[in-house]
């Protein structure tokens, strides 16, 4: 077992775990943060996306030994975040959610995109969300929601 110290949604935590436990399992099983979803479990679908030091990563491929000192942000942290809150509201308004399973991952990718590029074009939104798969095929409304949130945040 190893002890790893990192932060989740602004709170410092220390976890004792196997070095090869995935970040996804630490969040869901160890900390009860079940907003982050497991889809394919091998890095291809984006359902498990979280931000690590601000950059979107697939938490199913990140191991406990790799998160020492890192800042993790999950979907549970969005309500207290300006961009995150705007995205949540825009997703509801645009009707961007169908079954909802992929949405936490989409929100995290969108959060990283808008922080880096407050005025994204449609192509840039598509590129920013290209690592997230929605099997209800609701992409158009998701793109609309991200554009709406970005527009509101620019004021």
């Amino acid at each position, binding site marked *: 077992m190893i002890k790893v110290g990192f932060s989740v949604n602004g709170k410092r935590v220390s976890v004792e775990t196997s070095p090869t436990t995935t970040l996804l399992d630490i969040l869901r099983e160890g900390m009860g943060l079940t907003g982050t979803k497991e889809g394919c479990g091998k*890095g291809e679908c984006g359902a498990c996306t979280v931000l690590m030091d601000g950059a979107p990563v*697939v938490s199913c491929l990140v191991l406990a030994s790799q998160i020492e000192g890192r800042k993790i942000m999950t979907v549970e942290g969005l309500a207290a975040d300006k961009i995150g809150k705007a995205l949540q509201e825009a997703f509801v308004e645009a009707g961007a959610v169908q079954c909802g399973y992929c949405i936490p991952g989409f929100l995290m990718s969108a959060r990283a995109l808008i922080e880096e590029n407050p005025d994204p074009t449609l192509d840039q939104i598509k590129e920013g969300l*290209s690592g997230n798969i929605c099997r209800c095929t609701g992409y158009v409304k998701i793109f609309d929601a991200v554009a709406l949130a970005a527009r509101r945040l620019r004021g």
Partner: protein
Amino acid sequence: MRRIDTLSPGTLQEALEILAREGEGVKVIAGGTDLVVQVLERRKSPRLLLNLSRIGDLREIGEDGETVRIGALVTHRQIERSPILKRRAPLLCEAALLIGSPQLRNLATIGGNIVNASPVADSTPPLMALDATVSLRSARGERKIPLRAFFLGPGKTVIRRDELLAEVSFAGLGPDAASFYERLGQRRLLSISKVGVALAARRDGAALRGVSISLGAVASTVIMAPRTAAFIEGKPLGDEVAREAARIAEKESRAITDLRSTESYRNRMAGALLQKGLARLAAP
């Protein structure tokens, strides 16, 4: 994932000492995007992981006169955005943008992509076209090996058990350069390459000089296409030259049939991608 003992050194020197000491069954983990999946699917079962994520160096892209250096722990996201590489190796930036997804590119490292030695790796054809050199470090010292002599087969390289790939370097392209990376996959992202074609050269009026072409996913390693390059050398670019170059490339391509594509389709597409890239270079 099943429990595997892991060592997480803070410096490259400590990592090299661990490799020298530990012997069989050690796997190095950098971004982990290949290795974690291989372990999950039981294709690899290491006894010990050597985790490089706490090493502070090997994370920079630098320019030193003509030479461009990329540390082994540089991510594909850094590559796709690097102002140095956009200027000195734009074909490598093009390739990086086709790898995995943003979430994978934030993790996956250039060193991992090279050492994994997949014939379908997208960063390798550009680096081979640029005639890159890899620096292999061990507790005993350093070896420099041309990337073109580094790969022995799928998953097999000349790297020794006590060595780590520390850096990849090459002479950067100049302002008169022409280059591209063209690739075909099932879809643009999150797909494994069926065929990839990289070209690096310099412009001489309407012609190309110093032409170097590599082909990915059409042999057991990424290969060079010297006969195709020699044909293009010095000829003014145009439809006729591109068509004939494509025919030669099809013959130099040595594809196999597997679950992703067939031999004949891959060989034909190696030519077609070359033709497409040459058309892009000929366009005003």
